[in-house]
């Protein structure tokens, strides 16, 4: 039975590249309105899991249900329909370098709506102002900083008012202030638009500041060894690895 609160339901998911199994038998739910953190050490498969969730990599074994629809076995048309309701912010922003910021943001709008040019132009300005980039419409990605590229990427991800926004290492390469600004922006989007947010990160400050639920991927066991609110996981760590991760390698006194 599908819980109406559950946005994404993952069960029995195994990710493998040829004979090499990266993660096995993953099972977790992402609820509507969650800021869901996928955390774990380098090379544990966080980004691979994100690629599977967003449909970029086919599922080896297992099932992903999004809004009660089986995303894994759905036809390409259904998958495209689901993907249109998702926004993704990639590590480097992934803006199209041959287009201005306005053209980048307008692309999904032109593709999937019948809005007039005027409305699209206004929506582009609105999305840019939402991420603090008012007036940068005619700039090319090469003319703005790394943090601004990420914000512009986020504006593009928000273009179609998505129900889920995925973030791949949003804080990577950003200074602490820009990183904090991006965290605030994520919270703002989550709270004001009710968007479900899925964040892949190993930035502890972000994890504790924005995360409402999380999973910890363990590269050694290739499975989920921690599941819950990050603050609760810190208070009651299920194992040594999770504790070490959440305390930057700290030792447990009563371990």
């Amino acid at each position, binding site marked *: 039975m599908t819980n109406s609160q559950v946005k994404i339901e993952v069960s029995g998911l195994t990710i493998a590249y040829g004979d*090499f199994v990266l993660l096995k038998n993953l099972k977790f739910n992402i609820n509507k309105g969650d800021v869901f953190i996928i955390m774990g050490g380098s090379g544990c498969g966080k980004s691979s899991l994100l*690629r599977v969730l*967003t*449909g*970029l990599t086919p599922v080896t074994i297992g099932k992903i249900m999004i809004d009660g629809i089986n995303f894994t076995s759905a036809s390409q048309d259904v998958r*495209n*329909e689901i*993907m*249109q309701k*998702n926004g*993704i912010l*990639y*590590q*480097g922003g*992934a*803006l*199209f*370098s*041959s287009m201005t910021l306005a053209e980048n943001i307008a*692309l*999904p709008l032109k*593709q*999937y709506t019948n809005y007039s040019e005027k409305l699209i132009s206004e929506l582009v300005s609105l999305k840019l102002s939402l991420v603090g980039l008012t007036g940068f419409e005619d700039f090319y990605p090469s003319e703005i900083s790394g943090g601004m590229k990420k914000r512009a990427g986020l504006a*593009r991800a928000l273009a179609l008012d998505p129900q889920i926004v995925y973030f791949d290492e949003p804080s990577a390469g950003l200074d602490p202030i820009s990183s904090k600004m991006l965290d605030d922006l994520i919270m703002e989007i989550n709270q004001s638009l009710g968007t479900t947010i899925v964040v892949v990160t190993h930035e502890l400050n972000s994890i504790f500041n924005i995360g409402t639920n999380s999973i910890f991927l363990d590269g*050694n066991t290739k499975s989920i060894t921690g599941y819950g609110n990050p603050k609760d996981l810190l208070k009651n760590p299920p194992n040594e690895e999770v504790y070490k991760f959440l305390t930057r390698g700290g030792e447990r006194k009563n371990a």
Partner: protein
Amino acid sequence: MKLKFVEDKPKITLFLDGDYINFDDQSELQNLLDTVQNNKINLIKINAANLGHWDSTLIVVLYELTKQVHNQRIEIVYEKFPPNLKRLLDLAFMVDRKPSLPQKEELPFLETIGDWGICLWKKITKGLGFLGQCMKSFGRWLKADAIMRRVDFLFALQDCTYKAVGIVSLVSFMVGLILAFVGAVQLKTFGAQIYVASLVAIGMTRIMGAIMVGIIMAGRTGASYAATIGTMQVNEEIDALKTMGIPISDFLVLPRILALSLSVPFLVILADFMGIIGGAAVGIFMLDIPVNEYYRYTINALNLTNFWVGLFHGLVFGIIISVCGCYFGVFCGRNADSVGKATTEAVVSAIVWMIVMTGIITFIFEVLGI
């Protein structure tokens, strides 16, 4: 001897004495390991009381020693070790805690052949799948339903038309010149040097013009397609398109295929003309053929069939170059090295496929009497 040890069965005490800088003597380590193995030692004490200066090479030796004797269930005790040396040694073992990936076993002959066959089949289906996607995109374009920006098409067209005129003109002129020279050497012996004009005119219009344009455009534009799209793959721009549900065959591949397929036949006409001019330069200035004679023989040799055959080759080459460039770009890996590899593969495969297709087309035209 830097690794001094005292044997006291069943234990050995190794004394680290003095400096261990750039210490790289495997024979001393092997000597110690042999002694340990031959004398049934079960405990090794390493005493660092008199250790002077040391660097990473000492850690490597201690690491090797510890790893080897641990496998033989021999205990190791570190005595009077400087804390930093002990810490670094511990760190070396922590880094090593993950087992390395299992080595791939060498497959038996039949399995290797089978593996190769499966791999080849996968490549063929992948290539055909891509071609199918391109054809679907072309179909959508005909129905005005493709997601292709006009500006991308115009940009691609600009890149493979007037920007390529200079290089195509120069190379074709030189090819015409070479063709005339090579022909003249043989024809002169029969006193038939006037036929150099016919040789160059037929050779350039029927096939040489198209082949030269094909090779130039494969190296110039095909490589650029693979590098541009490959870099988009590295920068996750292709992922962004896929997750927006925009077919990359519409958005990235179609404008490039259309631009190159349209422009190459025109470049072939230019190459034909420049090649004939090159041949004329040799005929008029080196072989002393009068201008009006050379012109007359050239005009007589030119015919519409050869001209159209050359243009048809140009169209096919344009499709091959653009498909190869885009295919290797789209399936490029996610690092800088992969972009270089994709670029090379795009050029090589485009040239190979052009030659294969020339053979096939020539055979078909021969059978049809064209």
